[in-house]
């Protein structure tokens, strides 16, 4: 298994506050990779750097062996780097179907006068339906996404990201605010997506039980620095992680 993503010595600070201070890690292809840490550890900042919303001050990210330096978010998305957000960043006024179609269109070319041939639209629809079916969203396809209950909206976001056939999907707290049952469903969807479509997953998550149970490897951040980087079994044993994040029992 080769490396799909490699972060080297990432530095980023906001007005003197160090959000990332020399973060280094690599994600293997097909892996379920977790990033955890206390609030303000720099997890979301890290995702923003990876997806191109921020440019790091120092250091570099390589994706599929290619440097991402200077690449815009949409260029990265087209290379196969998908992303979901903490909180909800779906297109609320659009139908669930249109959300998914938009996600699926990432890599498609632009058309003369902006109009695709009908055939292409149908093929797009077929793929979108496959994704909807997969995430059990098909009954809500025509509902405006913003009208759905919270748990479903979260799922719409995952569906939109998966529809773009990402090679690596970055998930920012996908389970936050979900009920236990919804968390279990989502975990199943993600594992199946990895199985079926070969998506590598990188997630930031606060639910430690879920993280340790599902992830192959874990990166623990605190104040922008790497506290721990390795298999999930070692997280609870690491004295530095216990000190900064887990607390003593």
């Amino acid at each position: 298994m080769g490396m799909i993503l490699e972060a080297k010595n990432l530095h980023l600070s906001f007005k003197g506050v160090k959000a990332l201070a020399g973060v280094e890690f690599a994600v293997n292809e097909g892996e379920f990779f977790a990033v955890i840490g206390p609030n303000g550890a720099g997890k979301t900042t890290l995702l923003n750097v990876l997806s191109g919303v921020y440019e790091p001050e120092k250091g570099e990210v390589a994706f599929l062996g290619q440097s991402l330096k200077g690449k815009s978010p949409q260029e990265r998305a087209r290379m196969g780097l998908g992303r979901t957000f903490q909180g909800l960043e779906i297109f609320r006024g659009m139908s669930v179907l249109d959300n998914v179609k938009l996600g699926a269109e990432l890599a498609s070319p632009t058309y003369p006068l902006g109009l695709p041939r009908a055939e292409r639209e149908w093929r797009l629809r077929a793929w979108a339906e496959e994704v909807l079916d997969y995430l059990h969203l098909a009954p809500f396809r025509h509902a405006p996404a913003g009208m759905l209950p919270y748990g479903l909206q979260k799922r719409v976001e995952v569906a939109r990201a998966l529809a773009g056939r990402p090679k690596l999907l970055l998930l920012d707290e996908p389970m936050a605010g979900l009920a236990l049952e919804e968390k279990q469903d989502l975990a199943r969807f993600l594992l199946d997506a990895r199985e079926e479509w070969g998506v590598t997953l990188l997630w930031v998550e606060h639910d430690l039980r879920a993280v340790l149970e599902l992830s192959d490897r874990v990166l623990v951040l605190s104040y922008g620095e790497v506290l721990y980087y390795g298999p999930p079994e070692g997280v609870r044993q690491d004295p530095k992680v216990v000190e900064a994040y887990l607390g003593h029992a």
Partner: protein
Amino acid sequence: MYALSKRLTDAYSRRFARAVRETYREDEAYASTPLGRLALWAFLLLLLLLPFLLGPYPMYVATLVAIGALSALGLHLLVGGAGQISLGHAAFMGVGAYAASHLFGPLAPLGILLGGLIAALLGLVLALPSLRIKGVYLAIATLAFQFLADYVFKNWEAVTGGIRGRTLPPPQVLGLSLDTPERLWYLVLLFALPLFFYGKRLLMTRAGRAFNAVRDNDLSARVAGVDLTRVKLFAFALSAFYAGVAGGLLAQLYKAVTPEYFPLSVSIQYLAMVIVGGAGTVLGAVLGAFFVLLIPEVLNSFVGALGPEYAATLAAWRNVAFGFLILLFLILEPLGLVGLWGRIRNYFRTWPLPY
């Protein structure tokens, strides 16, 4: 006998009475059911025959509404579609109208097209502030454009004829002079129908989704691979093109162009059409134009019928009534006439067994 009638009714319900879309392909079409397709063709036929059905004055109003709907559709694409506000829509119509006033007679169709293109170029320029600013601030920037255009219309005498404006002879097509609204109607259809289908198709496919994505959430749109700059430039240019073409057609209808046709109040009137119609849909553009352009005419004739001695007082009340109607829409039906229509249609789609 029974078998035959059963076969006939079955065939009927398979063919026409089906209100439910059965395949994804049907779901992706303009008119999703056979009944819908029938209605679409009937409507197109009605449009073609309209001059034979209506008298000169209703025909004049119909032409006015059709041109208004075309222009409103342009604003719908921008405001309802891409979520960018513009208070300069009338200015783009003016640009189209003045351009058309220079290429008249047999060249009229060319002049209208050229007016649209020039307006689109200016639309690209107006899109530049939208790359940086949003909402109220963008509204102010477009307002500035409206005033600037107004100033140019009044003072660039060589091109616009100043405050007296320009007059133009009726357009000619194949030697036929389109000097009445009945004849001009077909020129309007020639431009409006393709542009309506184009707008509809655009909203149903990739570009429309990109527009909506920018409207709903621009951060997420970027990460989902939407090129914000491109979408905004395209939306402004497209909207201006529609306005320019509509302005050119309006110049043919009025047979004149003066700065008074395109003031700020007209820009606001078009925004009202978008709101009343229900933002972001093609049907909304038509319904909004109908409402905003037709209701004053209806209220007018109502006032006229009461007798001349009341005219002055009632004319003022006419505006109040109109404003009140728009307020009612904002409060009671935020989705506009389209939302209202959707609810009526859904009621009948499942009628008589709604559960």
